[in-house]
């Protein structure tokens, strides 16, 4: 049997095929066609025996793109009388980058326009009491209005529905009969937690995406079935777990970070295979770079997220994105300052060295001018490079800035790009109280391994791992994910009044439906993680504290909270009263995964791995530098920089002062010497 992972990115669709019997991994890339993602998906499967597939896992940007481009379904909102403008007013923040001092800033349009936001007489209270039940006749009136408005999807967003979802449920029951073709999204089902703006926004986004994703997933499943594929289709979600296709269609908003999540999950797998605890993942592609912190083999997860200007309260891996990648353009502003990005040359015209007419220098061009990417190197898609065009573009910018030559310019462009990456890693580590030196840098993406040592050097990190298949690593990570269902409930209780048995019952109520659904999907090995959101009475925000299964956990919950509070904020108040706000469960259905297996040692020496020697610029020096083919490197042989290690889709730079070693599983380890 085999496992298949397909990651649809903006430029390329990455495929990974894993033969479970032979423990063989194959990767490939095909260009993505916007609007025809499903056709490309099926094209990728053409050479594979579909009847022998055990599972397909799919990472998709269909949802993200729909939101960022405002191309969701025609969506309406039905909400409590008096509150139709919650979605538009939010908390009155601009949420527009660099809008301070910009008299012409324009706040993004609300996710649903005002004329599609309807109100209804109903009211629940904070304690879950229903003050005003919904009236069937009024729902009927609203249904008529919605029909006239021609909506495809509807989010039902009532105040305090997290405490009692009855009014939302009853409304949905009536509407399912009256408007059977309209996609319904209930706020308490999408986010069973308090804070109405975040919950309504998430439910509205879910509705916006619903018809598209439901349709997309349905088309894929239909086509697979026709071709005789019986394997279940799973969709990667933002929290690093997979969701079966049916639930992905119900909760499409959970797939928004589907793409980069795969790489982080792959990172956890690498950490396990190597016995590492703390990693920082660093995924540098063509237009942007994603970084994420992994502590104790668990990626940091957050429920306070934003997409565009819309709050998103689903649990998401905390991935920090900067708009700088290999294709980022270096330019001079009218005040004479040098910038790298956020504008990108994209795939067309692409960097100047592609020869498609791009005249502005990019980070890739800088690496070409420094010979860190060699003239004979084939980039993804088999492009031929034109180093002279890279140099010309750099020389032209150098002239405008008064920099002596193209090579100095190239060094500067790389230095600035590195600075941006370093800043984004500082934000997720130092600024949250973690020392990056305790972490291994896991570098992947087309451009990651080329800059990893430079970034690690700036952060005094001494250890880097470049996993196998760095150019397709996010797709590889798709085959490392378990099926995950999360559930949460808001329950306000003072810690001193809380009873463990009562809380255990709530946990059970949260867990049972998730486990049931997973078992229904044929997954029998279930693992449950439990958490409580705890805060000091009077504060308005919570810390999420893991809750063990062992009896008596409630007695230690307070101590655990104080310790975590102290670790994060540098102080705590052990005497102050605490309260529990939410309980959360993360229920995993454990699946068979891609396993890292030993690579074959070719038996040859280092010389056999040598592809060429060329002159490469490192800092101020030009050094004679060997270039090796990764797959021919002898296992466990330490090589000293300078060196460059080439492979399909990526190049690893080993500067002077660093050593590199290919381990028995095929991962590359870079270490700073001294």
């Amino acid at each position: 049997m085999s496992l298949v992972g397909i990651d649809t990115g903006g430029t390329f669709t990455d495929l990974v095929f894993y033969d479970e019997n032979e423990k063989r991994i194959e990767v490939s890339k095909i260009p993505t066609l916007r609007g025809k993602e499903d056709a490309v998906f099926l094209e990728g499967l053409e050479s594979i025996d579909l009847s022998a597939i055990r599972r397909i896992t799919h990472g998709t940007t269909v949802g993200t793109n729909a939101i960022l481009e405002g191309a969701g379904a025609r969506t309406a909102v039905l909400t409590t009388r008096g509150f139709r403008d919650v979605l538009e007013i939010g908390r009155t923040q601009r949420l527009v980058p660099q809008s301070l001092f910009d008299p012409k800033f324009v706040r993004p349009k609300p996710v649903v326009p005002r004329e599609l936001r309807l109100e209804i007489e109903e009211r629940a209270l904070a304690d879950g009491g229903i003050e005003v039940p919904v009236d069937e006749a009024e729902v009927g009136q609203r249904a008529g209005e919605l029909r006239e408005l021609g909506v495809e999807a509807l989010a039902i967003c009532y105040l305090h529905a997290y405490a009692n979802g009855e009014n939302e449920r009853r409304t949905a029951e009536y509407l399912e009969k009256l408007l059977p073709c309209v996609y319904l999204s209930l706020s308490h089902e999408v986010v069973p937690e308090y804070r109405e703006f975040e919950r309504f926004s998430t439910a509205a986004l879910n509705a916006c995406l619903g018809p598209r994703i439901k349709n997309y997933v349905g088309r894929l499943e239909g086509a697979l079935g026709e071709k005789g594929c019986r394997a279940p289709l799973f969709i990667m979600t933002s929290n690093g777990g997979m969701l079966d296709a049916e639930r992905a269609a119900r909760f499409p908003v959970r797939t928004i970070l589907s793409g980069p999540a795969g790489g982080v999950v792959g990172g956890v797998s690498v950490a396990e295979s190597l016995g590492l605890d703390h990693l920082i993942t660093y995924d540098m592609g063509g237009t942007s770079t994603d970084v994420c912190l992994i502590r104790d083999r668990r990626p940091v997860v957050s429920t306070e997220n934003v997409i565009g200007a819309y709050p998103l309260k689903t649990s998401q891996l905390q991935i920090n994105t900067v708009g700088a990648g290999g294709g980022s353009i270096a330019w001079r502003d009218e005040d004479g300052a040098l910038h790298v990005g956020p504008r990108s040359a994209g795939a067309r015209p692409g960097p100047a060295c592609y020869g498609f007419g791009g005249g502005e220098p990019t980070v890739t061009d800088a690496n070409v001018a420094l010979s860190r990417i060699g003239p004979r190197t084939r980039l993804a898609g088999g492009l031929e490079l034109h180093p002279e065009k890279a140099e010309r573009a750099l020389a032209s910018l150098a002239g405008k800035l008064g920099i002596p030559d193209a090579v100095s310019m190239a060094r500067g462009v790389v230095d600035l790009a590195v600075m941006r990456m370093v800043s984004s890693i500082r934000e997720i580590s130092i600024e949250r109280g973690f020392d990056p030196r305790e972490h291994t840098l896991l570098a992947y993406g087309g451009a990651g391994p080329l800059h990893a040592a430079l970034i690690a050097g700036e952060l005094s990190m001494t250890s880097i791992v470049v996993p196998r298949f760095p150019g397709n690593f996010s797709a590889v990570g798709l085959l490392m994910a378990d099926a995950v269902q999360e559930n949460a409930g808001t329950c306000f209780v003072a810690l001193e009044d809380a009873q463990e048995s009562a809380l255990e019952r709530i946990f059970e109520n949260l867990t049972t439906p998730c486990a049931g659904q997973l078992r229904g999907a044929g997954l029998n090995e279930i693992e449950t993680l439990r958490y409580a959101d705890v805060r000091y009475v009077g504060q308005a925000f919570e810390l999420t504290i893991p809750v063990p299964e062992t009896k008596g956990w409630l007695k230690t919950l307070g101590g655990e909270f104080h310790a975590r509070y102290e670790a994060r904020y540098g102080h705590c108040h052990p005497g102050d009263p605490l309260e529990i706000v939410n309980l959360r469960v993360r229920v995993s259905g454990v699946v068979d995964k891609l396993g890292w297996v030993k690579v074959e040692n070719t038996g040859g020496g280092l010389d056999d791995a040598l592809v060429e020697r060329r002159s490469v610029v490192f800092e101020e020096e030009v050094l004679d530098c060997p270039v090796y083919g990764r797959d021919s490197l002898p296992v466990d042989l330490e090589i000293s920089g300078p060196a460059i290690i080439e492979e399909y889709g990526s190049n690893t730079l080993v500067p002077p002062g660093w050593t590199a070693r290919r381990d028995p599983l095929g991962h590359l380890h870079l270490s700073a010497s001294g």
Partner: protein
Amino acid sequence: MSREFSGEIDPITLEVINESFVAVVREMRANMVRTAYSSIIYEGHDFSCVLVDGEGELVAMAEDNPVHIFPVPMEVGEMLERFGGDIHPGDAFIHNDPYTGGTHLNDVAIISPLFHGERMVVYPVVRAHWGDVGGTTPGSISGKNTEILHDGIRIPILRIVEKGEINQGLLDLLLHNMRVPEERRGDFFAMLATCHTAHKRLEELAAKYDWGVILAAKDRLLARAEASMRRRILALPDGESTYEHFMDHDGHSLDPIRIRARVVKSGDELIVDFHGTDPQTKGAYNVGPAMAPSAAFSVIKAFLDPKGAINHGAFRPLDIRVEPGSLLSARYPASCAGSMEVSHAVVSALIGATARFASDVVTGDLKGTSNHVYIGGRDAQSGEPFLFYEFPAGGTGGFAESDGNNATRNFTEGDFASIQSVEVIEQGQPLKIRELSLRADSGGAGVHRGGLGLHRAVEVLAENALLSISSDKNVIPPFGVLGGRPGKPNRFVVARGGETLAPSGTPGKAAGFPLERGDVFVMETSGGGGFGDPYQREVESVLADVHAGYVTEDGAREDYAVITRGGVLDEEATRAHRQAARAKRRALTLVLKDEGAGGDSRRRCFMNRKTLAGRHLERGGLVELRGKWGVPLRAWMEEDDALPDNAVGLAADGVAILDAEENDGVYLSPVSV
């Protein structure tokens, strides 16, 4: 990466050092959020971090609160003046005195110099809002304060840490004069620790580049920002422009307060002179000398160079003058508790005075206040005290390309959440939110409409509670520009039974109004000023506004002369109505006339009785006269039968504000208050 300093900084090193400065500020901010004790800092983010150089010039800031940042150089200057020559490594200074560069007493600054040898190099300043600094009322800010002693404890520049040793006696003295001292102590140490973090990072940077390179880079960055601002000023025509802006009143009398700003542009420099602004007020609406320059800079920066770097270089081409003893540079014992309201008023004055130089950038006026609202009391069931605090945003002004934004923090403010979650409030406080909606028809009419204000209704479930408000533009609304109409003013009322009560006799300023169970406190925030002639607004846009409910059918008819019935446009009636409305606009002839002594700060204009009646105007009513540069002069109507028909009498300085001459035609319209 260590590079030798050769006197010339290459552009790459320059950018790397620039990015490093910003990274230090960002890490300082993260550090404050992680270590502060009070929620207004770690959740409300009401604090700012900045790096300055040895002369106190701003080197780097992030997206902080401009009101916090721009006064920093003045208080660093105060430190240099008082302690110059006696400042040593390991010293840190504390300050909050508005009269010498502070903002209001709640904003406490820590200045922590960093030395290289004998020289103070680049170092951090942190300013944070302390929840309470003593004074008359919990929270210290009250719109009814009449002297600074009511505002809390005033801290002149003092050495709080000497060569690494904290002056414990001084710290104890300060904390003994504040409510919840333990929280304040925690915030103090968070600020100190944040400064230490900055020192560490700056020293790491110096180990890599050496201070010679860093200081040279700093000079280049400041010079670059200066050159950018100068280039933009130089591109403007030489000339001058004056505007006067009126605040509602000082919370004691109902007389408006005048702020006058004159902007003179010559070559690549700008002078902003506030001569002619009222003397300090009896109430809380005063500021120290640093606030008006900060607010003025915000507008100049926004109008001339919004995307340029924010450091001290951008200030250098500006010469901003405030008169000691005026409300913009108040003297002891004036209260400065309402300093934010004054700061917002200076922003409005500068929008008016800068319009001439930035006609393609000018926007309709803003909400003009923070809208501080406090409801405090005890929960009837638990007996626990509660305090509800919000500062709801209003609409922003329309501008050349677009309508204003609805209920949004404006471009001169930090991007804080100004209202809380309904569900959070109802979980924790004996209050029930009845409504949160956009306020229809509140946006100033125009080709581009002002953004809408919001409407928020809060029902009191406690047996009783006290309501305090510090706000402005409750009487005199945000102005429109280039023919745009004013937005609706801010409004705060209490609905009790079937009645609507005003919480004080001074609109927008109330202290301790008793609320009862079942009362509904209604906050309505102002709409932004409109941009351009409302009759020129596309009919389709008006219709879309009617469909969305941003404008009512009545509003469409009154403000835009667009006739709709049941959401359907009546094209013919609209054409006729618009034609008639335009025809009704008749210019008046401008006549010079001395105002005489009015006994208050109101600007007055005059008409004979017949002209007044013909235009349905009333004596004492507020009107606006449209100036050459599109911003309206506000004036109060008086009768003078000595004037000819269809003439309006105005004093010479008023005519100068309009940039008009005697016998010119001028358009005048009433402002409903």
